[in-house]
């Protein structure tokens, strides 16, 4: 998964940036769309095939599932592994509700096949908890009230985690750019900016 080194005003070395994302996945998405249209009645569906054994490392644990090659990482996480902290918003790489960390870098789980995630370490919202306690980014979102309906929030939190791992003390403009790949229709961005700043402080204190 690529991310744009020169996006926006501040430049964002991590986090899902909109422009960089489209550059990286554009070709793949186009290909998939073409396959869908070539369908003829009764014919075996394009992209479908016998389920294959897939082993995913999620939040430090290995899960082996039978998955069709066309199943996205998002689908497997939510509907097969029951990890519904990762949300589905658009399934076309636009909103970031499904953001997870892949080897520590934020990616859209809707734009990655489950098969592609094999051999990588996937971290979801659930993986940011300290047991039953909220992790530092989650705690910061609580304190700053950086959500309303909460549906985009898991993706926002994971994107913020990825941003802070790469850039522990981002400026406001770096926060904006780093969070620009995650839409919030309730419009809580102004509080999200504060929460990321607060999370940076909490992580520093916690030493992680």
């Amino acid at each position: 998964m690529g991310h744009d080194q020169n996006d926006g005003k501040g430049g964002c070395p991590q986090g899902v940036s909109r422009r960089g994302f489209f550059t990286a996945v554009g070709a793949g998405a186009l290909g998939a769309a073409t396959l869908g249209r070539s369908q003829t009645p009764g014919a075996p569906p394009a992209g479908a095939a016998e389920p294959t054994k897939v082993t995913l490392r999620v939040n430090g644990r290995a899960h082996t599932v039978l998955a069709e090659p066309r199943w996205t990482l998002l689908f497997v996480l939510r509907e097969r592994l029951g990890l519904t902290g990762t949300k589905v918003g658009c399934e076309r790489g636009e909103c970031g509700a499904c953001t997870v960390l892949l080897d520590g870098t934020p990616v859209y789980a809707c734009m990655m096949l489950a098969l592609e995630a094999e051999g990588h370490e996937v971290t979801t919202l659930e993986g940011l908890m300290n047991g039953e306690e909220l992790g530092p980014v989650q705690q910061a979102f609580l304190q700053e009230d950086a959500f309303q309906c909460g549906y985009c929030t898991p993706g926002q939190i994971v994107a913020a985690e990825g941003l802070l791992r790469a850039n522990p003390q981002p400026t406001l403009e770096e926060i904006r750019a780093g969070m620009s790949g995650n839409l919030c229709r309730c419009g809580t961005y102004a509080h999200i900016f504060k929460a990321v700043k607060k999370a940076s402080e909490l992580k520093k204190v916690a030493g992680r």
Partner: protein
Amino acid sequence: MKTPKLYFVDGAVPESPAPTDTPAPWTETRVVGKSLPRVDAYDRLSGTAVYPSDVVLPDMLYAAVLRCPHANARVRKVDGSLVERMPGVRAVITGDSKAADLRWYYTRTVFTKLFDPTCRFEGEAVAAVAAETPQQAWDAVRAITVEYEVFPFVADERKALEPGAPAVHDGGNRVGEPEKYQRGDVVKGFAEADKVLEASYRTAAEFHTPMELHGCVARWDGKRLTLWDSTQGVYGVQQRVASLLEMPLANVRVIGSYMGGGFGSKLQADKYNLIAAVLAKLTARPVKLFLTREETFLCVGNRPPAGMRLKAGVKNDGTLTAFDLTVLGTGGAYPTGGTGLVDWLVRDLYTCPNVRTEATDVYINGGPSRPMRAPGHPQGAWALEQMMDALAEAIGMDPVQLRLKNVPTVSQANEGQPPYTTTGLRQCLTEGAKAFGWDAVRRRSKGDGPVKRGVGVAAGLWIAGDGGPPATVIVKLFPDGSANLNMGASDIGTGTKTVMAMVVAEELGVPLEQIQIENADTGTTEYATASGGSKTVPTEAPAVRSAALAVKRQLFELAAEELKVPANQLYIEGDAVVSTKDPKVTKKIAALQGLRRRGLLIGVGTRGPNIEGKVINPFVAQFCEVEVDTRTGEVEVLRFLSANDSGRVMNRLTYENQVIGGITMGIGLALTEQRVFDRQTGKVVNRNWHDYKIPTAMDVPADMTSLPIDVPDPEANTTGAKGLGEPVTIPTAAAVANAVYDAVGVRVTESPISPMRLIGLIAARGKRG
């Protein structure tokens, strides 16, 4: 096909139960009004909150809907026979299926079939499939063959009444007679004016696009149906589904749980509820049906476009003499209120003796509208508030002063011109202007370079925000002093649950973390109307207070026996009951033996009626600063301030969050959001978030200030709070437009203020010199 009996409620609630308690408003509060994190924050932040789209049931199937790809067509033939044998497919339903032979009501009187051969807009449902996986369901949907007879369409309301325009319904494209309003004499009013201005305005159609997709999970247990639905109101969905399936209400259970946003598009049931129920019945398995993001741009509502022609007269001293407004709008292919409330601000916001409005609602071949956050109001504000700015300039008056000159004390547009309970508009304008530094920044230079700065103001009121009956709430007190709050209203993200818990804490002294709150569920929680109209807090909070007081009364009766003190001489301090006469006579709630023996105290609270002869409305004034790049036409919003009179502030933190959310949504209306139809086909071109641009983190200022005019409204209800969620977005777009004008002297009367549109207007002005 039988004719189901629909549940509708007309007029006032006939006999709302007498309020169990009508306490005086709080004089001082210990919990209410504080800045407290949400009581359900943990659930929403940890991922443990189960939203309807998260529900995964054993043996569950997935459904997908085939939708008409044409703007106007008739289904001649639909063939799903081949599809039934495709891998994983368990059921296919079309307009020919007996199980799907159901009615669907777009409005109370206008109905079609669930799968109707007549498709009046792109995205109308044609068939549906249930399969083992969503991928297989979509394989099958794509493989269904449909023969359409495609007709000419009309997708632009401005062309819908032209001779020869395709008729969306038999009888033409007018939705009834134009809606007219008149007071005074506008001709006389314009004659009295020193300046008369006239201009045309238009706002583009917007989409709600909440983050959680629309949909539900349906499961049957014999004759009982359970729906996990992403909805703003579980009871509304229950009533509609039960009536269309001709089932007893008791046998349809709708579980709201958490939900991921609605903004008005999830106030009622949708066809997907019926489709999921039918497929689940046919297959005898649970069925999950959530729409794709693209579908949500076609068939689950929109804020209708509004064309507005406004003529206004003003005297040189700022006295408004007349408004004359003509509106043309469309709710799409069905009569869903395309022009509803667009004229309300012109009628009611400012003192003006002579007002005439006329609204013409027409049909087009577009998706039916649904209420969207303050229906009609942001559109009306776009016209009225830009006009107020132009009038102020025409008479050489400051725009804040012109508005202050015309602050109303009575609701002129309501029958008999009743007074408002409170009108905070004057404080919103004066205190807002002061906090924003209006006078200084307004006089400041716009900048010498190509990037110009400007500031703008706009105001508004919201026609509702009063709330009212019916609402019933139950509060239970456990013997250790912890509590349970049982309320059927959905917390759609506004912080409803948190505010209600704070009301319980205020009355019973229970810490917030010891209050458990039920999620909206027709099977287990009390009746509530849908969460919308900025009425949830003013409706539910008084009922919660009443329920908590009912518990308190019983608690004091128990304590009175054990403390040997009359019940009316007791109060709660922390976790103990204390005598008002002697603070040493006290007992911890958890130590009350009577409470132990009873096991539970239950208090039932209801919402009493609103005050008669007065109008309860929230008011707002917003100020913003923008930068306009005159080389590119790009607008950057630098800061915003919103001064709100919504009565008492219940929770400062969630209040501020509503304010920034409303501003953000308003910036979308101002700068980027618009539905675009393809002229050749009538199809929606921008049916995704890449092409339909809602504000991102890059598009909003970090500098947003909420300035509450925190004056409890003693006549509104027993908590003094008025609605907030909608007024916060009403004047936003107009304030941006006024700031752009202040920066570059160009009035953008059509939304959105896109770089292309603005640069064109700047260039055109250059040519004119």
